[in-house]
């Protein structure tokens, strides 16, 4: 079983269903749209900010504000790409065609990840430039220190969010269950844990909290995270690796 055969097959699968197009376009549109809106609002409010807030003003990070909502569409993409196989019964046909389950799983994830990376990077760069345009005189330049890393990091962040969702969906198999756990986790629980001081120490190690560090250029004044941008990204990558290993072990052991 050549891996290239599986990659070609998975590419045909991914491009031939409607959910791929609408989830990824939604991620792009929401992230860019919301980023522009919040950038424009921030520009208008800049003069009313405290000195402390002005010091830690991070125009790059502000243009990525739409990511908190846009990542939900990435989660839906990641979940559907895997759990579609289970909800439709296609998984039996797929595994009969490719009985090497590791090749099947990682072929599928590789194709979906590659697509996410392209969409994520396009989203991230467009968001940055349009967001900076909205910020006017407060804007950051792509050549400023740490900015290019943050912009590329935005694309990588979206990619890892989708990969994490693929791993979780592969373990849980049901799209509803996967979305029911992942959506509130990333939209609510992680934010609450990360912002309440009592739980912040734990919250900062959650995948999105740690991973989003890579999009920051200016460190917030009250930031106590014991890791830098790449450190945080590494923590997120560990979460992803854990989810994918779990997915592989379960797929290998379970009856289809």
């Amino acid at each position, binding site marked *: *079983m*050549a891996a290239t*055969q*599986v990659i*070609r*097959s*998975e590419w*045909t*699968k991914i491009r*031939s*269903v*409607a*959910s791929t197009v609408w989830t990824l376009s939604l991620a792009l549109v929401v992230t860019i749209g919301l980023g522009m809106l919040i950038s424009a609002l921030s520009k208008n409010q800049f003069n009313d900010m405290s000195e402390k807030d002005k010091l830690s003003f991070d125009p790059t990070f502000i243009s990525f504000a739409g990511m908190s909502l846009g990542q939900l569409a990435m989660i839906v993409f990641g979940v559907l790409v895997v759990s*579609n*196989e289970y909800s*439709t*019964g*296609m*998984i*039996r*046909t*797929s*595994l*009969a*065609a*490719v*009985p*090497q389950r590791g090749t099947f799983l990682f072929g599928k994830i590789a194709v979906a990840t590659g697509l996410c990376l392209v969409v994520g990077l396009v989203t991230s760069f467009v968001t940055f430039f349009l967001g900076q345009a909205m910020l006017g005189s407060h804007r950051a330049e792509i050549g400023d220190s740490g900015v290019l890393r943050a912009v590329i990091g935005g694309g990588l962040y979206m990619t890892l969010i989708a990969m994490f969702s693929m791993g979780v969906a592969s373990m849980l198999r049901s799209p509803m269950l996967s979305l029911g756990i992942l959506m509130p986790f990333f939209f609510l629980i992680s934010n609450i844990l990360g912002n309440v001081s009592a739980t912040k120490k734990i919250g900062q190690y959650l995948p999105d909290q740690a991973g989003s560090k890579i999009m920051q250029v200016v460190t917030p004044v009250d930031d106590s995270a014991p890791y830098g941008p790449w450190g945080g990204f590494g923590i997120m990558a560990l979460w992803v690796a854990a989810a994918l290993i779990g997915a592989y072990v379960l797929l290998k*052991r379970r*009856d*289809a």
Partner: protein
Amino acid sequence: MIELEGLTKRYGDKVAVNNLTFAVRPGIVTGFLGPNGAGKSTTMRMMLGLDRPTAGDVRIDGQHYDQLKDPLKYIGALLDAKAMHGGRSAFNHLLCLAQSNGIPNSRVHEVLDTVGLTAVAKKKAKGFSLGMGQRLGIAGALLGDPRILMFDEPVNGLDPEGIHWIRNLMKSLAAQGRTVFVSSHLMSEMALTADHLVVIGQGRLLADTSMADFIQQNSRSYVRIRTPHRERLLDVLHQAGVTVVESGNGTLEVDGGKSEQIGELAAQHQLVLHELSPQQASLEEAFMQLTAESVEYHAHSDAPPSLPVAPAEQRQGWGDGWKKD
């Protein structure tokens, strides 16, 4: 050639498939028969490496399924016609399967043509009728031009035209020297297509025999007699050494008897006969008797369908088994 060796599947303490050993040979249609819940689908999933056996082994042309390189070129299977993404077109469904096994795109067009779906190739599968879905599933099985084909209940829910088409397809595939393994819970269906029978009940092997042998062994023939001179005829037959069974409602039955002999005896003694007819128990009845003990889900019915009278020690009504559960 598919070989099963002591194949067993347990879910908790429930045994779904119990120590199955048999071989499916090329060039003939092998019917895999059993009541609902007998373990047919589980067995087929294990053959395809989808479910892991608790014990035992399945080999496809001597190899384990997951050792096959491009398995669709060895064995094509229709397990569940709905095992596909409804949002994908028929063409793309087959294309992704073909690509995963290095099968050229042109073959996709060929199999679509074979099953008669060329006109709807670009249509999404969710709009397909059951029969069209079944045809698409069969196209997927034929994709790799495999030497072994496996169909799980292929005629379920099909119209007569579709059933006729599938029957002929299976026969022609076997005639080309391929191994054809097809499951069903209908004996009547198997009688029309299968050359060899494997019967299971509650996961156990009940029969592994040629269709001809099964018919010979299980279709009991007897002669039914009605006469106003019942007592005298009984005496005459008794003296002639013919065993008679009284089967209620005034008829007599002679197992394996020759109607000529009985007719001549009656004529010699000037006995009037109202009926003298050779009877044949149907295969469906033979199958129900064979599996009666192992039927998992019985319908409760006040009057079990009457069966022809079997020799007393084997006599068993359909539905007796549930009391034992």
